[in-house]
Structures are given as C-alpha cells and as structure tokens.
C-alpha cells in the first residue's frame, strides 16, 4: 500500500532505511481499459494522472517498452521556460509553467523545481531585435520577461565572457526569472506514483508491437505482454511516434533525430542560473549535485540509435568555452543522446487522428520537458472529451494541410 510522504515518514524511513514503500507496484496488464496511454515518459504519465484526477477516468493503463522516464524525459537538460514568441505556443508553455509552480505539492513528490532564471543570449543586432520583439510579445501575453544588456549579464554572472573582442560578442539577453530547471526523473516518478495512487496501471517492460484498427476505429494494442483492449488510445512516444503511427496505417510530419547532452564532474557552485545561446548553440546550467549540464544540437540525419556524432558535441563544447573560458579545463564525465521527434514548425502535435479513438501527442522535439505537466493536462482533456482542449486546438495535425503552421522555429530564437 502506498503511503503519503510527509516529513515524518521521510525522517522515519531515512533513519531505519527500511520503511520505504515501493513507489509504484509492478503489475501485469488487465485485458481491457477505458484508455491506454503508450509511452511512460513524463508526458504520458502526466496524461494518465490528469485523466484520473480531473476527467474522472481511472481505468487507465500506461504501457512502456522500457522503464518509466527512460526516454527523453530522463535524458534532457531540464530547462524550463515559457517565453515563446507565438501566442499559441506561449499560452501552452505558460500553462505548463504555472502547473510546475505547484506540482511538488500537488503530487506529494519533490520534483526539485528551481526557478533560478533563464538567460537567452543575443550576439548580433538582429539577435537583439528578435529578443526585444519576443520580450514585448511575452509581456503582452502576461509572461514575465525583460531585456538585459551585457553589463547587467556580467554583474549577474561574473564568469561569463562579455569581452567585445570575443568571436561572437554578447550584446544582451532576454531574461525570464520564473524559468529554471527541475529534476528529470523526479517528474516521471512523481506523476507515476500519484497516478498509480489514483488507480492507474503503469506497466513497464511492455512494448506495443501493433495497434489494432477495425473499420476506422481503434480497438486495442498488441504488446509483448499480450493483447490489451481499449476504445481510446493516446500515443505519447516521442522519437518513436512515426513507428507507432505506421502500426495504425498513418504517416506523420515528423522526423527523428539524435540530440546529445553531457555533464562534467561535480564541482563547487559556480553558475547559479541557466544560460542559453542559440547563435553559438550551447546551453548550460549547474545541477544541485554540482555537475555542469551542457546541451548540444541535433544531428541532421534521421536516427533511432540514441547516439549522435562527436562533431556535434565538439561544437557545443566550443560554444560553451566561448561563453565561459573558465571551464576550459573542466573534465567531462558522461555524454549521451536521446531521439527527438522534430516537427517542421518546431511545435507539437496534440491531436485526434483519422483513426477514431486514436490520439497523438508528439513532435515536442528538442524542447518538450518544460511542457510536461501542461502537455499531459491538455492531452487528458482532449482524450476525455474527444474534443481538443482550447489550448491544444492550434496544435491539430491538420495545420500541415491548412497551412496554419505556428512558426516558432526561428521565431523563438532558441531551440530548447
């Protein structure tokens, strides 16, 4: 039986190291559910949680081919912000950011959400014009944002190189004080535990190998743990979305690419905020453990291999050293890749499909971690009502046919 965490339960279990209850039970699937969610990343688990909590649908299974949070949720650099340019995008990400602000309490699980601020650097006059335009749009949309100049950046981050002689001199930045980072596996385990306490079955080591469709309606899935039936299925499988779509006879406007990150050895606190630069392409923060967390760009080729090219890592390292020469002798500890689902307009698809009862939530690409609670929230309502949540409406897959793209790619000026 799962118990509510409290300071008393944590202290007691911490002292005798025995009273830890299992966070989620290991279970076998039932033969039928009201809703099946494919993929137990943060987005899939959040979807299940909000289905149970806000939509009155508790008979839900989340099926995961590996272990929970083992996909991009557990591989990302955890930058959270909502300062996107387009109204549609900033409303969605701001919805998520507001949920982040109360999530640890809501889930009874410390996800270590830390609003340490996010700087998006500009290195040219055009960068600065784009930054000003985006900050103005943010303010009109009620999203906190300011433009800061190079002197203010230097005051806040003394180790950054604001020399005018740099190859790409820093001219200023946008700053979102409410942005920050969170614990990647914390959000997965938090949603999983809270969902399972509401009756959701989380089934790991259970790969979907086919989606059964009968007369245009979804019927269920074939998995490595047998057949599971459901009238409604939500697909939240990030880099593998095209593979699952194909099982249902669908195509998506998505391509899968490797995205890499790496961390250094742990060190004393040296960087208290998040710094991103799209122009030189690198982004960095320091985790609570003390390691520098550095993100790179994508490889241009398609891949499902969860690894990318060394030249991409080299490029990101060069960009970080350009900004922080002081890190030149820091030793790197680990490096990895995740497979991201990239949409032509760099915006997600949160949508019903041509197959009745089959919904897709994908295309978050290189920047979906920040959206985790908001994405699950609007997707749960979309599935429960068989009608898109108002915030999800602009993200219908039909936009690629009507031309109603949400051009966030160049617009936001940053990838993550």
């Amino acid at each position: 039986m799962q118990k509510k965490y409290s300071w008393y339960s944590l202290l007691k279990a911490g002292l005798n190291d025995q009273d830890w209850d299992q966070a989620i039970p290991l279970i076998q699937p039932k033969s039928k559910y009201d809703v099946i969610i494919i993929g137990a990343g943060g987005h899939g688990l959040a979807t299940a949680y909000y289905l149970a909590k806000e939509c009155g649908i508790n008979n839900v299974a989340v099926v995961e081919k590996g272990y929970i949070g083992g996909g991009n949720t557990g591989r990302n650099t955890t930058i959270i912000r909502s300062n996107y340019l387009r109204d549609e995008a900033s409303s969605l990400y701001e919805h998520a950011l507001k949920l982040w602000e109360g999530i640890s309490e809501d889930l009874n699980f410390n996800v270590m959400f830390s609003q340490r601020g996010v700087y998006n650097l500009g290195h040219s006059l055009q960068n600065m014009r784009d930054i000003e335009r985006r900050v103005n749009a943010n303010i009109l949309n009620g999203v906190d944002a300011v433009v800061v100049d190079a002197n203010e950046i230097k005051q806040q981050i003394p180790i950054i190189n604001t020399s005018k002689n740099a190859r790409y001199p820093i001219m200023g930045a946008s700053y979102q004080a409410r942005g920050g980072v969170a614990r990647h596996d914390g959000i997965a385990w938090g949603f999983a535990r809270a969902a399972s306490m509401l009756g959701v079955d989380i089934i790991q080591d259970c790969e979907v190998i086919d989606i059964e469709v009968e007369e245009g309606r979804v019927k269920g899935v074939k998995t490595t743990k047998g057949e599971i039936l459901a009238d409604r299925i939500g697909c939240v499988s990030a880099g593998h979305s095209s593979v699952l779509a194909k099982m249902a006879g669908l195509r998506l406007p998505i391509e899968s690419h490797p995205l890499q990150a790496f961390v250094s050895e742990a060190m004393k606190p040296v960087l208290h905020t998040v710094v991103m630069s799209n122009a030189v392409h690198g982004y960095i923060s320091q985790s609570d453990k003390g390691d520098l967390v550095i993100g790179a760009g994508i490889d241009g080729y398609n891949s499902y291999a969860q690894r990318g090219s060394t030249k991409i890592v080299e490029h990101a390292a060069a960009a970080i050293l350009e900004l922080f020469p002081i890190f030149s002798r820091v030793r790197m500890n680990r490096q990895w890749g995740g497979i991201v689902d990239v949409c032509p307009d760099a915006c997600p698809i949160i949508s019903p499909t041509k197959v009745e009862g089959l919904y897709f939530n994908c295309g978050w690409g290189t920047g979906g971690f920040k959206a985790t609670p908001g994405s699950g929230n609007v997707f749960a309502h979309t599935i429960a009502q068989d009608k898109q949540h108002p915030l999800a409406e602009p993200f219908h897959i039909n936009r690629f046919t009507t031309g109603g793209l949400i051009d966030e790619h160049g617009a936001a000026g940053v990838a993550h």
Partner: protein
Amino acid sequence: MLLIHCPYCKESRDQSEFSPAGEAFIARPKSPEGISDEEWADYVFYRTNHKGNHWEQWVHTNGCRKYFLVERSTISHQILQVAPFGARNSETEL
C-alpha cells in the same frame, strides 16, 4: 562518426565533409494544380521516418558539392550502399 563514400569523388571521407539532405525519392507532384491540399501536405511536410534501412540524400559540402543517395540503417547508422542520382528512382526500382 560516419565514413561516407562519395560516388563522384570515389573516395571514403569523414562525415564532417558532408551534410545530410533528407529522405530520398520524394518526387515533386507531376501536376501541381491538380492535386489536393492533403497531397501537397504529404509532399511538403509528411515523412516516412523509417526505423531500419532507409534511403536518404547527402551532399559532399566540402568536397565536390554534389548530391547523392545513401542507404543507411537508422538503427545502427551502418551505411549499406551509396549511389549517384539517376541510378535509381525508388527503393525498389534500379
């Protein structure tokens, strides 16, 4: 890192000389006025994104600057074959 054989230069060179240029065999519709919005969307935006052996285009950016075809596994990254344009027009047809 990949070692890519350019069918024009007839040499295997480091990946950093090349740039990927997307899925191969996506043909522009023959009668652009005659097709539906769905067909246009499929041509412009929708992709196969195949997991497995996949035909794609690369360009020898820092070499001969020519485009060519590569069959590569998106699971292992292993390159199975390369071909100049015109050698084939689809996965099956030679």
